[in-house]
């Protein structure tokens, strides 16, 4: 077990190195002079030169790269061009709101997705099955931002039973629409996957054995079938983290949610390169770490998987 964990972590290092290098290249090759961007048209040549040397832009690329890696190791993601705040501090400040949104979206998606998937599988070809799967395939195909606007139109502007955009001092009423928006796509994917895994499992011999032993259908489904169907479902819940982070960019923009996604979009609009660089690295790291945890958790869900 310990060597498995260590090997997984060791395998991570080159991937993380690749990620930060790709981001460095991306932000370094951009057209335009960041110093000029910072000062606008006002900058006189001396000021521009001073800013360049402050930012290390006068160094050769290789030196800039080494400096960038060194800063990263110390957890320093640089300083925003826009408001002179530390990028790492801004990210941590906004991460709470994103985490809250993503956490509840994932809970909602897992609960609805798994239960709809099981019910669809148990009642295959029923009206419930057809309608659930139709909604699921539509949910996978509809753009996140449009789903959000549709929900706003219906519940906030039409029926007026939920508040519109904003964080609302953290009130849960403001949380509902963004969570449903962000959770729709993962819920749909999980429902489809759960259904097909359950159908696979339900045709196995040991399910027939369980039934012939006289166990109730409830026990057969929940205890015997569901546990085995859960393994692939667990995997997709892990990969959904990337989807959630991408979706959060759009969801937070629509709902004016003060998270990392909206921070990133604002940085992109302002061409605030240190902030762009920092947030892309930050989100990629979250994704990598979550997937490591998912990998390690397989053993808990399925004792048959051995760590060798």
């Amino acid at each position: 077990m310990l060597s498995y964990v260590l090997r997984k972590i060791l395998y991570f290092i080159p991937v993380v190195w690749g990620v930060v290098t790709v981001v460095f290249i991306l932000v370094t090759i951009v057209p335009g002079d960041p110093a000029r961007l910072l000062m606008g048209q006002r900058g006189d040549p001396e000021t521009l030169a001073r800013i360049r040397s402050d930012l290390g832009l006068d160094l050769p690329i290789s030196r800039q790269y080494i400096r960038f890696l060194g800063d990263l190791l110390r957890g320093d993601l640089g300083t925003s061009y826009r408001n002179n705040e530390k990028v790492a501090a801004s990210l941590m400040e906004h991460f709470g709101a994103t985490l809250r949104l993503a956490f509840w979206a994932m809970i909602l998606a897992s609960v609805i997705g798994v239960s709809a998937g099981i019910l669809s599988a148990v009642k295959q070809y029923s009206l419930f099955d057809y309608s659930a799967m139709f909604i699921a395939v539509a949910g996978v195909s509809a753009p996140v931002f449009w789903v959000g606007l549709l929900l706003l139109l219906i519940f906030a502007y039409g029926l007026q039973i939920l508040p519109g955009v904003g964080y609302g001092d953290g009130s849960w009423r403001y949380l509902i629409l963004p969570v449903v928006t962000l959770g729709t796509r993962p819920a749909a994917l999980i429902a489809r996957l759960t259904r097909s895994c359950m159908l696979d499992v339900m045709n196995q011999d040991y399910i027939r054995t369980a039934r012939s032993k006289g166990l109730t259908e409830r026990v057969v489904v929940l205890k015997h079938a569901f546990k085995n169907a859960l393994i692939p479902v667990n995997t997709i819940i892990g990969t959904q983290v990337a989807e959630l982070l991408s979706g959060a960019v759009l969801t937070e923009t629509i709902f004016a949610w003060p998270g990392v996604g909206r921070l990133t979009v604002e940085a992109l609009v302002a061409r605030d390169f240190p902030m762009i660089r920092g947030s892309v690295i930050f989100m990629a790291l979250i994704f990598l770490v979550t997937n490591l945890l998912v990998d390690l958790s397989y053993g808990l869900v399925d004792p048959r998987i051995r760590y060798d």
Partner: protein
Amino acid sequence: MTAGKKRSASADLRYEAWLRFRRNRLALAGLVMALSVILAAVFAPVLAPYDPLKQLIWTQGREVRLAAPSAAHLLGTDLFGRDILSRILYGARISLQIGIFATIVSLLVGVPLGALAGYFGGFADDAISWLINVIFAFPFFLFIIAVVAVLQNPSMTVIYLAIGLVNWVGVARITRAQFISLREREFVEAARALGLPTWRIIFVHILPNALAPVIVQATMGIGGIIMIEAGLAFLGFGAQPPAPSWGLMISDGQKYLAVGKWWWAIFPGLAITYTVLAFNFLGDGLRDALDARLKR
């Protein structure tokens, strides 16, 4: 086996796959839906009742500003009195163009790299797999907007190159897996024994046998790419005004949702959902039809 016999055998297999595809109602629905989008794009000038860029408020007065759906404007008009139905029909051109070109870029990059990794293994595989894992670590959409946003005012060409250069990893993964499973098969060994050059073995002997899942992946990918382009345009990083891009229309129309002028933002979203649904059904259907052929 003579060449003639072989051809007819593979034609038989293709025909059987088509029969399976035809029996699958969702797949057929997907095909019909996708064709309808393609026809809308091709015949937009004939089908569209108005010029998509023409601001009718200059000729017809203020009544056509944000007019609700009516007989004259089936899906209503926007703030400038442009006919939304006409804009949606022309918008299909933008979405399909991005979907198709970005997919071609993904295939051109992903298939050769996946083939090299899968066929040669060893260092080539390690290096390419590492690159695939690195790109997979980024949330796709975020990475693409970052690429597009740092290049100022990107053209549509830059956008589909950017999408394709991120999206190829899915294609490469599947191609690699196919090559790994095919490279030890008898027909490949026979080709090697005959002393055929490696490139010929890879591209003429293995690749045609490896393509089915790659095509399925690429078809399903078209829907995802159309969605990414819409998201880019929605955030202001994709197609620029006054282009009739669906994502851009939703972005412009969202400000008027709160005052009850819902048609500007909602109809283009339906168009996106319909198109993505079409390619998802089509991809599902192709997978089911071709998979059975692979199992035989």
